[in-house]
Structures are given as structure tokens and as C-alpha cells.
């Protein structure tokens, strides 16, 4: 059995986030995810501090670790200075490195986040940009959002900005050489490899599930499946 606990200890967030949990449950009481999902951060921290690698492997393949919203409210309140959300973040990173994330419906969603927010970083230099938030994928943004996208130039000019042009200002175009620097940073720090790993395991899972997978873009069966699938078994 691989030593998953030791792998987690290589992540500074895990070392910082896990001191000694006394199972008081304050984290669960304050947790927005625990109110919505069948989720108990206290149990996760307790399970992990037991250092049982079999249990940790189950956790890495589970839906459970994907329920946290990373609001970090637990950090403020833990009387022992633990941060369950940091423990969860370390678990999520390891789950993706080992390819376990595709074993759960919520874990598979990492592919959708990589293809949207992740790729926006290289494409635009922003995680989020108005032109990358399509009304079709964001109905909740309402008619004002369609209006802003249809009239972007005029709306931004009225508010003192110039979209997609070089120079200072809101939603300026990020120069090519700057985006190249971002790519270099991702390459040197393991960010690119992390992205490629998500792609590799997702492609494999798509084949297992018999779903169409394309090298790029959002227009493929696997993306639509992971972006929209909800088996409704995530709640108490």
C-alpha cells in the first residue's frame, strides 16, 4: 500500500492545516458545505490524522473531498489551529496527481474547471473575463449580462475603460510576451504538467464511459457530462 499520508505531508498546506484534531466539530458547525451536502469536515480531518492509508485512498477516490467551497471559515474557528479546508486542498491535489479524481462524479468536474478557468489563464491572462462568461453556460447572469456582451465596447467606454486594447485599464489585452511569461511559470513550477495530467486521466475516463472526447474546447460529450451531471445523491 502506498504511503499516502507521507505524500500528503509533502504539501505545506497539509502540514499547516493539520495539527491535532480533538473532534469538537466546530468546523462542521460553521461550514456552508456541511449545510448543503452530506459533508462533515470533522470526519475528514479525523480520518486523515489516523494515518490509515487504506482509508485515505478511499477518501482520495470519494465524492466527499469535492464538497468544500474553500471559504476558509473553518480556519477562523478551529480552537486547535487546524484548517480543514487546507487539508481538503492537499487531498484534492493528491487525488489529481494520482488520477483518482475521475473515480467520483464531483472529482471528474476538475476537467471542466481546467478547460474553462484554467485555459482562460493562458488564452487571456485572466481567470475570468467578461467575454469568456457565456450566457448559455450562465443563465443566472440574466438579461443584463447578454446586454453587456452585446454592447461591450460602448458599456466599457462609458465607464472609462477600453476592452482588449494594450495599455493600462480594465480588461486590457495582456501582451503576448506577458502570457508567454505565464506559460513559462506554469512550465517551471509543474502547473503545465498538472493540467496535462488532468487531461490524460479525463481522456481515459471518457473512453471507459463511452463518451466522445476532444483535444480542445467545450463541445464534446465528456465536457458536457462532467459540467452538468448531478446524480442527486450528494445530500443528506
Amino acid at each position, binding site marked *: 500500500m502506498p504511503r499516502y499520508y507521507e505524500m500528503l505531508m509533502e504539501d505545506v498546506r497539509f502540514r499547516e492545516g493539520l495539527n491535532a484534531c480533538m473532534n469538537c466539530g466546530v468546523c462542521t458547525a460553521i461550514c456552508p458545505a456541511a449545510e448543503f451536502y452530506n459533508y462533515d469536515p470533522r470526519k475528514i480531518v479525523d480520518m486523515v490524522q489516523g494515518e490509515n492509508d487504506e482509508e485515505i485512498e478511499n477518501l482520495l477516490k470519494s465524492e466527499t473531498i469535492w464538497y468544500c467551497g474553500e471559504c476558509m471559515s473553518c480556519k477562523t474557528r478551529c480552537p486547535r489551529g487546524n484548517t480543514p479546508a487546507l487539508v481538503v486542498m492537499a487531498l484534492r491535489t493528491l487525488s489529481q496527481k494520482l488520477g483518482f479524481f475521475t473515480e467520483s462524479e464531483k472529482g471528474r468536474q476538475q476537467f471542466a474547471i481546467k478547460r*474553462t478557468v484554467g485555459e482562460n489563464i493562458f488564452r487571456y*491572462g485572466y481567470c475570468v473575463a467578461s467575454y469568456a*462568461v457565456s450566457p448559455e453556460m450562465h443563465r443566472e*447572469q440574466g438579461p443584463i449580462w447578454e446586454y*453587456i456582451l452585446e454592447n461591450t465596447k460602448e458599456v466599457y467606454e462609458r465607464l472609462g475603460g477600453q476592452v482588449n486594447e494594450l495599455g493600462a485599464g480594465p480588461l486590457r489585452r495582456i501582451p503576448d510576451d506577458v502570457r508567454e511569461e505565464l506559460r513559462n*511559470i506554469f512550465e517551471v513550477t509543474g502547473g503545465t504538467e498538472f493540467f496535462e495530467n488532468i487531461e490524460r486521466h479525463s481522456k481515459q475516463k471518457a473512453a471507459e464511459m463511452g463518451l466522445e472526447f476532444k483535444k480542445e474546447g467545450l463541445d464534446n460529450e465528456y465536457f458536457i457530462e462532467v459540467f452538468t451531471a448531478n446524480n442527486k445523491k450528494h445530500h443528506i
Partner: protein
Amino acid sequence: MKTEGKRRIWADYQKEIADDHFFYVRSCIRQSFFPGSEQFFLHFMRNVMGKDVFENPSHTTCTGIGYHGDVVPLNTIMTVVARHFALMKENGYRNIAISCVTSFGIYTEIIETWKHFPEELEKTREYLYKATKREFDIPESMAHTSDIIYKFRNEIAGKVKYPLVNKQTGESLKVVEHIGCHYSKMFPKYGVGGAEFPNVLGGMIDAWGGNVVDYPERRHCCGFGFRQYLVQANRGYSLSNTVKKFDSMMPFKPDFVLTNCPGCNMFMDKWQYTMKEMEGIVYGDNGESIPVLTYEELAGLVMGYNPWDLGLQFHMVQSEPLLRKMGVEFDPDDKFKTKDGRQMPVPEKLINT
């Protein structure tokens, strides 16, 4: 009564905010959804206060939404942020002004990580040099842009044209303030009032004549939850948390909501629209929804700026009920006009119109 101990404890909740010479870093969400807010901040600081605020066009995303969406590794985001610090150093600045609460939380987390794990700082220096040949210093002072508006709240109070008072009744307006989790829940010492007594927005509301509403779910998350909103299948999480807050504030009949974080603003505005569409529920008085303003929009509004130059018309929930209460003089025909006065199409189905 001896108060020395109390004063000492209270000192832990104060924040030193620089006075001038800021390196300004924009927010992906604020510049996409509320560009007028960022532009007003720059106008106010430069032209009203006469301060030096520098923006480098090579500044990019901090990758914070990707990091909290768990697709960007820690080493990567630390190095992207280090690059921002390198730009600041190259431009000769030591005070950073951050326009985004997610970024603000990222910067605090990274600086604290480097303090607790100095080897991570050294590793980041090597990564950055290898990737970009740049070198960086850690900022001497770090402020969220709301901290800076808070610092100058009394100067703004001296210029108030429309105080936060109901013009008809003479009563102070009731204001819900929403700080945003990553402002001070992670590292309280970086926030005005810490995590226990956050006063960055409350201080503005008090100074400009309003009353802060204290309601049970005041400190509950807006519901962003990163992956819980980014992925369509999870959005029930996001909506449910916003609904929990609005259900809790509703009996107090707030006149508007004031937000610190651009993401929170977007959710508290757009989920009101969603609830009205899905369930027919509105949370304000008189069958109206509750306007949700950024602190820059509010500062501009009380100082008498044209609400349509601030961008109030680009929320889903329209602000006219609030403008009427405050007695703001505004031209309805100017609402959807271009900068040079040409009429634009008028959007349909906005709320409160």
C-alpha cells in the same frame, strides 16, 4: 476603570494602511463585472485625493480562482504572485493596493506561507528567476482597495452630497454589509477589525450617515464556493447559501447591500434575479429586490457622481428605489447612453424597473 488592557487588545484589530504611492492590481471579476468601480477608485485617488496610484499593464490574473478551483498548484500561484511583486519592485513601489478579495486572500496566504516555510520563499525565488529572469521583494504594506476607501472615509464624508439618509423620513438608511470570507477569516490581522469586528464597510456606512444592519447570517459565505459555482451541476450550493443570507436579512428590511468582494456582489445581485425567476420571491420592501452596491459605487454616489457613470445600471437589480430614497438627482434618459451621448438599446426585464 482601567482600560489599558482593553486598548492593548483592541490594537490587535487595527490595521496600518499606507497613505500614498500604491501599486494597483486589478481583479478579474471586478474589471469584468464592475469596471466603473475600479475606474472610480483610480479617479478618486488620483484626482480627488491627489495620490500616486500606479498600474502596470503587464500585471495579469493572480490565478486565484484557478487555485481555489484546485487546478493551479501552490508552487505555480506563488510564482505568479511573485511576478507581480517583481513588477512592483521594478516600478519602485512598496505598497500594494489589491482590488479583489480572492487575490487579497491569496497574497496574505502566500506571504504567511513564506514566513512559516522560508524554504518555500527560496524555492519561489528560484522558480521566478528561471521562468522570467525577474527578482522580487515582499511588499511593505498590503491593502485591499476598500481599506484605502475606509482610510479616507472621513474625507469623503466631508464631500457628501447625498448622505445615507431617507430624504422623506429623515431616518438613516439600513445597510447590510458583506465583507467576503477571504478578506479576514483566514488571516484576521490583515483586515480592518480582524475576523471578529470587521469594520471596513461598517466604518464607511457610519461615516456617511447610514445604519449597519446586524442580522443572524451576517458573516455567512455568499455561496461562491469556487467549484460550487464554476461547474453548472454544483450551482445549487451557491444559490442556497445566498438564499440563506437573504432569508436572514429580509425581516430587517435593508435599503441596500454593500459588498467588499466583487464575486460576492455578483452573486448577491444575480441570485436575487434567479430567485425571482424560479420562485417569484423578492427580498426587499414593496415588492422590490435589494440593490447590491460595491464600496466604490457607494462612495461615488454619496459624493454626487452620476450613477450611470459609476455603472449602477449594469447590475441585474436596478438601484432607482435607493436613489429615490437618498434624493439623488438623476436623468433616466442618460442611463443607457454612450460616453458621447448616443442612445443605446434599452435592456429589457431588469429588476426594479
